[in-house]
């Protein structure tokens, strides 16, 4: 047992006890004592100095998504802490485990409008799973243990600890770290109800046209194998939400693609033909369901979910199964009858063919016109042999990347789903690369999002992280422009961007960069980027007014999916 150590040292030692080896952060007045303690542990902890707190927190998110462990982020009081809020809200929406530690003014100054004081506990309350202000240094080890337990258990989420400066300098007479395993008021996971399993098995065995929806819960609970076993035994087709991407290998014969607004044709249109939906670790986001009242009204529904508040939140289900997806899936697999669903699968293949002929082929193998986002994504995916981690920003490039990237491995997609945070991509790629130093990390970023967090190019270069950034530049805020084109009579209100010389900017940060605008040079440019041993930014000048299709217009029924803008109602 250590004796007479400062609160700050207790913070660092507690983090080490939790196995933390990477911290993303930005120092400032109210957190100097913690940074001072960190100075003695530089060998054990890799601290990444971001260029803005928003960069630090998105990097921590990227790190957490790839490792499954809590991302750790430091910031100072006041503006430092408020700059974290967007990232914390993003992590809350996407169930990302995070432990954020902010400095706070000394406790006697609380509530006096002291320099760089802000009510961070109050501000972050709606977007944290839990938060707490420490003003008594003796509480540090216990509260940090609790923070990690809460952030990483059950449905994960962000936790924020606000530590006053006097707590940081306080002397703890004794320091002993005990991990937290239980909190009376908090049940992270329910025991699986066997009766519900039997009810579900009955529905599954009777179903003629079932469809399984893969959510991020599969990845969070490490249930990739259990999912595959279940699908292969039952022969049920599967489709994924954006965050469920990569849980099931892209080439798996039962993987029929993405759900929702820019998802694939089959999964959307056939949602309203199924007789059974099996939702696993997903929350029926409006981007998935479209109009709720017309979402699969004919189908029975089973929902495997860890968070009780998600049951019947949007869609009423017949059989809710509360608990961990890994356990529920293996219980189901044990009891269900083997099946093939040959005819039903054929319907999906027909839809795939329709979509390929009308949309995909001209997206990924265009013969004329400017370079498309789709072909760029296809080539990157091919050249990285489907082994890369794909990071995206938000917007058209995100949807195209999700549609056309292919994956062999889970935890390969890092994207901002629920909150849709532009500026997420560059810092998240940095965090993803630190989490998986041996994997190729490619980040697809639009010209809008690039300019929101481009300062983190400096961080990437400083740490020689070999991130490959593909800037898909159409000189537009493309997704908003697409909506303006389709639904606002092409009134392009403030969506055209006057862009800087991106290659010059990246090179200014010391990042190897190049630009490609001709199709004949695209493959070789991508190859050059991938072969380059360090960080690289490739700007691809793409078609300016390319649209992402298919599309379920906002608030429309999933079966009203548009394949092209000319053919608004190719319904079957």
């Amino acid at each position: 047992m250590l004796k007479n150590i400062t609160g700050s040292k207790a913070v660092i030692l507690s983090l080490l006890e939790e196995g933390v080896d990477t911290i993303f952060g930005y120092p400032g007045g109210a957190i100097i004592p913690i940074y001072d303690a960190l100075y003695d542990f530089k060998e054990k902890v890799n601290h990444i100095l971001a260029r803005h707190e928003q960069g630090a927190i998105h990097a921590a998110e990227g790190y957490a998504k790839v490792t499954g462990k809590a991302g750790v982020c430091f910031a100072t009081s006041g503006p430092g802490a408020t700059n974290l809020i967007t990232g914390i809200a993003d992590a809350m929406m996407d169930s990302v485990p995070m432990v954020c530690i902010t400095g706070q003014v000394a406790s006697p100054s609380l509530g006096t409008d002291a320099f760089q004081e802000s009510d961070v506990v109050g501000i972050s309350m709606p977007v944290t799973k839990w938060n707490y202000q420490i003003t008594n240094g003796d509480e540090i080890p216990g509260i940090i243990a609790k923070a990690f337990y809460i952030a990483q258990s059950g449905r994960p989420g962000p936790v924020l600890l606000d530590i006053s400066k006097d707590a940081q300098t306080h002397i703890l007479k004794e320091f002993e770290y005990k991990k937290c395993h239980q909190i009376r008021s908090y049940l992270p996971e329910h025991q699986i109800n066997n009766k519900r399993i039997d009810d579900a098995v009955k529905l599954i065995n009777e179903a003629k046209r079932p469809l399984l929806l893969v959510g991020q819960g599969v990845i969070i609970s490490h249930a990739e194998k259990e999912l595959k076993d279940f699908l292969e035994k039952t022969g049920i087709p599967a489709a994924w939400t954006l965050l469920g991407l990569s849980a099931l290998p892209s080439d798996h014969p039962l993987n029929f693609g993405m759900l929702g607004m820019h998802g694939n044709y089959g999964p959307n249109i056939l949602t309203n033909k199924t007789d059974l939906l099996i939702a696993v670790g997903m929350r029926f986001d409006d981007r998935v369901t479209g109009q709720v009242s017309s979402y699969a009204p004919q189908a029975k529904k089973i929902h495997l979910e860890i968070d009780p508040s998600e049951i019947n939140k949007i869609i009423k289900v017949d059989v809710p199964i509360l608990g961990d997806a890994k356990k529920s899936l293996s219980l189901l697999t044990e009891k269900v009858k083997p099946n093939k669903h040959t005819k039903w699968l054929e319907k999906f293949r027909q839809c795939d063919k329709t979509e390929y002929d009308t949309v995909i082929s001209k997206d990924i193998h265009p013969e004329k016109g400017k370079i498309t986002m789709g072909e760029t994504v296809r080539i990157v995916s091919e050249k990285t042999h489907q082994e890369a981690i794909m990071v995206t920003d938000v917007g058209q490039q995100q949807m195209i990347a999700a549609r056309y990237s292919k994956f062999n491995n889970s935890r390969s997609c890092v994207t901002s789903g629920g909150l849709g945070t532009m500026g997420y991509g560059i810092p998240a790629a940095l965090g993803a690369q630190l989490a998986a130093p041996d994997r190729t990390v490619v980040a697809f970023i639009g010209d809008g999002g690039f300019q929101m967090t481009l300062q983190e190019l400096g961080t990437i270069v400083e740490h020689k992280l070999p991130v490959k950034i593909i800037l898909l530049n159409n000189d537009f805020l493309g997704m908003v422009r697409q909506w303006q084109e389709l639904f606002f009579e092409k009134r392009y209100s403030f969506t055209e961007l006057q862009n800087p010389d991106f290659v010059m900017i990246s090179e200014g940060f010391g990042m190897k960069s190049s630009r490609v605008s001709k199709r004949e040079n695209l493959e070789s440019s991508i190859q050059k980027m991938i072969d380059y041993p360090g960080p690289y930014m490739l700007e691809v000048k793409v078609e300016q007014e390319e649209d992402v299709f298919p599309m379920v217009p906002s608030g429309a029924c999933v079966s009203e999916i548009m394949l092209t803008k000319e053919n608004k109602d190719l319904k079957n």
Partner: protein
Amino acid sequence: MKQEYIITIFSENNIGLLNRITINFTRRKINIESLTVSQSAISGISKFIIVVNETEERVKRLVAQLDKIVDVLKTFYHTSENMIFAEIAMYKISTELIYGNDELGEIVRNSGAQIDEITKDFIIIEKSGLKKETQDLFNKLNKFGVMQFVRSGRVAVTRDRIERLSEFLKTRDNELEKLN
């Protein structure tokens, strides 16, 4: 259909929890008609009683969100029929007014209210009961002028024999045990 629901929240006694609870109402634009926080029969555990006017559907979802708060042990919701409840109201009236007015004296005497304090300037009376009862008294007194009026939040207990939380705590202990 909207109707009155009483939401009972049992929680740890932590700073900031009230805020964490109320933001769930604010975010969904649900008005809090009345709110009371006190100790429960189980030591260390606080009890929030919150009255809302909402549809059962929305109350159910709200309760699920409240239950998700880490420091909340358990949330229940009831219609008024399933609970015994009351509120306390206090009224401050000018002494001069009462002495000169038989009708007012009559109202006070028949109201079942108790007199807390009499000074030469004012009289304070107190009445507990349903909101309708304390409101009726206010309306009657206010014809003559009420100097100050205040009504507490609702206090309520269920018609069950013991605090429902005791049963809950037993199950919770079992569940936590199995988890480890």
